[in-house]
């Protein structure tokens, strides 16, 4: 478990991080969501120790991180880059060895990872000869090649084609399943919604929402319901405590003043005709994001 506690950072007169605190649980994928300039990259750089915070600490299992701990982290920076004139395989071996792996295990990890990412045949090619999408995969391999204990990825999905997105998603899930904490930022809220166990939302350098994805959706859900039934549902308008938002054929969207009112609707609906679905509308991550950022 990694914990960011009350981190502040300013550039010149601009406060870019303001009392940022959140945790990244072991074995879970945590999505880090925020607009451009909200402070995602700065936070990640502080976790990795590339930048130092003005105040605040980053703890691993309750103990402040040392530079030795950080060497066991895997990092994919937002600004992508590898040596263009190195061969892909050699490059990964080089990075693994900088992390302290023996030449043999560096080569073994490189071969395994390139195969998993579908780059096995490109190991001998120069980085600059790879297509953009493949360079991106190589970049992800660079973050993973030393079997990191903690993974931080800044926008790992930007610039990936849909197939590569699936590959990377499965690699990240597999990684989290091994018990390591994974933190990644993304603009693509649909991916975060599908993939993440936990979500952290940052805006203007402040954490606006933070917690397990389902819990967040629960917290931000409105008393809004959807009912699908076989017959026309015009009768709902007359139920006390209900205001109808949308009504067409057998589908009604309404807000209930109390839980009892919504249950009353369900009971009456069952009495009149078969009900195919009755659900509380849960907001999408995008909706929650819009709500908390404003």
């Amino acid at each position, binding site marked *: 478990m990694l914990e960011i506690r009350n981190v502040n950072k300013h550039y010149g007169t601009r406060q870019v991080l303001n009392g940022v605190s959140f945790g990244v649980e072991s074995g879970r994928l945590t999505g880090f969501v925020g607009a451009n300039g909200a402070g995602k990259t700065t936070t990640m*750089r502080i976790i*990795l*120790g*590339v*930048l130092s915070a003005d105040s605040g600490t980053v703890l691993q299992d309750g103990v402040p991180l040392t*530079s*030795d701990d*950080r*060497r*066991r*982290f895997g*990092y994919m*920076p937002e*600004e*992508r*880059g*590898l*040596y*263009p*004139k*190195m061969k892909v395989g050699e490059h990964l071996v*080089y*990075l693994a*060895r*900088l*992390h*302290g*792996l023996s030449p043999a295990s560096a080569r073994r990890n490189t071969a395994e990872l390139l195969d998993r990412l579908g780059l096995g045949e490109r190991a001998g090619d120069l980085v600059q000869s790879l297509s953009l999408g493949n360079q991106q995969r190589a970049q992800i391999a*660079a*973050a993973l090649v*030393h*079997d990191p204990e903690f993974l931080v990825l800044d926008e790992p999905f930007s610039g990936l084609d849909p197939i590569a997105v699936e590959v990377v998603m499965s690699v990240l899930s*597999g990684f989290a*399943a*091994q*018990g*390591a904490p994974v933190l990644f930022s993304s603009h693509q809220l649909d991916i975060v919604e599908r993939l993440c166990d936990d979500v952290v939302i940052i805006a203007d350098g402040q954490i606006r929402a933070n917690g397990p994805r389902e819990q967040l959706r629960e917290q931000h859900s409105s008393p809004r319901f959807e009912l699908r039934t076989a017959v026309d549902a015009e009768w709902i308008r007359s139920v006390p405590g209900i205001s109808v938002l949308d009504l067409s054929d057998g589908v009604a969207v309404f807000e209930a003043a109390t839980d009892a009112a919504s249950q009353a609707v369900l009971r009456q609906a069952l009495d009149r005709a078969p009900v195919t679905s009755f659900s509380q509308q849960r907001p999408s991550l995008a909706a929650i994001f819009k709500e908390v950022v404003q």
Partner: protein
Amino acid sequence: MSTPQNSRVQARPRVPAPSFARSVWLVATREIIARLRSKAFLISTGLLLLISIGSVVAGGIASQNQSLPRVAVVGSATQIIERTEAFRIVEADDVAAAEKLVRAGDVSAAVVPATGEADPLGVRIIALDSPPLDVLGTLSVSPAVSLLDPAPQSGGLVYLVSLGFGLVFFMSAITFGSTIAQSVVEEKQTRVVEILMTTIPVRALLGGKVVGNSIMAFGQIVAIGALVSIGMAITGQSGLLGTVGPSIVWFAVFFAFGFVMLAALFAATASMVSRQEDVGSATSPVLFLVMIPYFLVIFFNDNAAVLAVMSYIPFSAPVGMPMRIFLDTALWWEPLLSLAILLVSTVVVILLGSRIYSNSLLRMGARVTFRQALRG
């Protein structure tokens, strides 16, 4: 599939982080391999080696063919000229034939029997447009000369040696200095630097670059030195090797430390910009520091005061001190003192340079000012 993975996690031993020296060495090795794979580097090194071996061979051929001046002789003048053993003799049938040889430029002068009784030497010299000094000198009587402070080396040789030291220092420093500068900016421009910074200490990255490129530069110097020495021995110039040899060794020692200092400066100044196009302007102050000793040693190689000052200033010591050793004007402790000064300033420059380097690496875009780079 998840079960073996989980067991692998639990069994995974913590890989110890490599030591600082190990990180430096890994970076240095990568730099060296990248250099060795670069065609531009191989070609320029090959050319430099060819030029140095070529100049030695050319010098050897010139010294062997240092032919005696050709002189035409007529009749009784032959015996007089033969006795001097200072000329190659071309016999002519008569004065007219000798004059013809002079006019044709086949000989530098003709020596013919004197016509008048008044001539005590019994010979007369015929030349084309000016009195032939070498012939006159040999045939004249000179008073004895005592030199109070004999110059240990001839002027021409001093010039050549100073040119050699200056040029080799200048060329190597510029070649490898700009290589280091480019590789720093390449890492910044391709953004690979952020991954490197999260993997190893920034000082190890700088150290590896400096060490790797210094090894290459030093290797080149040693190769040139060895080639020149072997070349001199083979072409029969071992006498020259004896006089130049010690200063070449000192040059190599001074160069090794002087280059480390320059390399740190090149890396630090280059780290302040983000694009290859800006490397030139960013590193120009350092380039200037390299050019000064080169021009000073060429223009002032006969000025003891300038050389003495040069031999103690860290930037020019790698050229100045070996020159003074060659000229035999340095006391035994002087190279050691100068080397100590060079070492201390190298350490200071590395500390300052690594500060600039660490503070500039993540600042992309606009050029970082010296104030920002030093304050962080």
